[in-house]
């Protein structure tokens, strides 16, 4: 489980202080689904290292960054249709969200982030008296 607080990024265990930016960085495909009480983001980040995924929410912007360790297949390359690199993407969600309640999970190469809305701004059904 990866969790985040309002303005800090999740600390990485064992990572170096200044990671080298030698890899290409990719934008993962993301689905964003609004369920009223929360917004759910689902990102395809295959090959990411589970303990090196950062999710942060600051000033209404949700950012994700997943580190993908390099992997080399044995032998010489015959065909290269995709590259391997870190994933990074940000979305402006707005200020109505409860940053302290954001949760995230990483499973089978898919990162799911739950961003709950603050209780006061959740949609409420209003009874119409007739």
């Amino acid at each position: 489980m990866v969790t985040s607080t309002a303005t800090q990024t999740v600390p990485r265990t064992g990572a170096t202080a200044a990671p080298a930016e030698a890899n290409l960085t990719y934008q993962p495909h993301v689905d964003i689904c609004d369920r009223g009480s929360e917004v759910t983001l689902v990102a395809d980040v295959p090959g990411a290292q589970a303990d090196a995924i950062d999710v942060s929410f600051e000033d209404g912007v949700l950012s994700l960054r997943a580190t993908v360790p390099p992997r080399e297949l044995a032998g010489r390359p015959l065909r290269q249709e995709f590259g391997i690199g870190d994933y990074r993407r940000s979305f402006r969600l707005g200020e109505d969200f409860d940053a302290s309640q954001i949760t995230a999970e990483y499973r089978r190469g898919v990162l799911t982030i739950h961003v709950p809305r603050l209780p006061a701004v959740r949609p409420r059904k209003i009874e119409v008296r007739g």
Partner: protein
Amino acid sequence: MQTYRAGFALPLEELRDELDRLWGTLSAAPPLHGWGIRPDGGVFPAVNIHESDAAVTIEAELPGLDVGDVDISVTGDELVLKGSRPDGNAGPGGNGETKPAVTWHRRERGTGAFERHITLPVAVDSGRVEASLVNGVLTVTCPKAPEAQPHKVQVRTA
């Protein structure tokens, strides 16, 4: 699939999102991987193939899939990758319950069935093919058939 954009107030924000996405599409190289929008016309999944003296290794990205969701078969020099990703993203449900209404702000991850036939450079030993699927990355190792492996030839001196 419809994409609803409710809730993202300023048109400028939408424009910036679109430009970010367009820029990402142009600047990320090699081509985008994954289901959904594929500029090269829809071959999925993208694969990387390497060849060593002993084996041919194929790698593909299949996020969200588990070993049971993908079907790999090898015949002679052809490898077939088949499977599907279910659309489980629309919220809780199944068992015939009505799912609560959701609004999609963005829908980039595709779902559905895929099938790809890959012709390998050499014949492989189909009985010894191994595959693993870890964190959405599928790696298939196909040991070469004995007749396809390099053989040292002794040069006889007269």
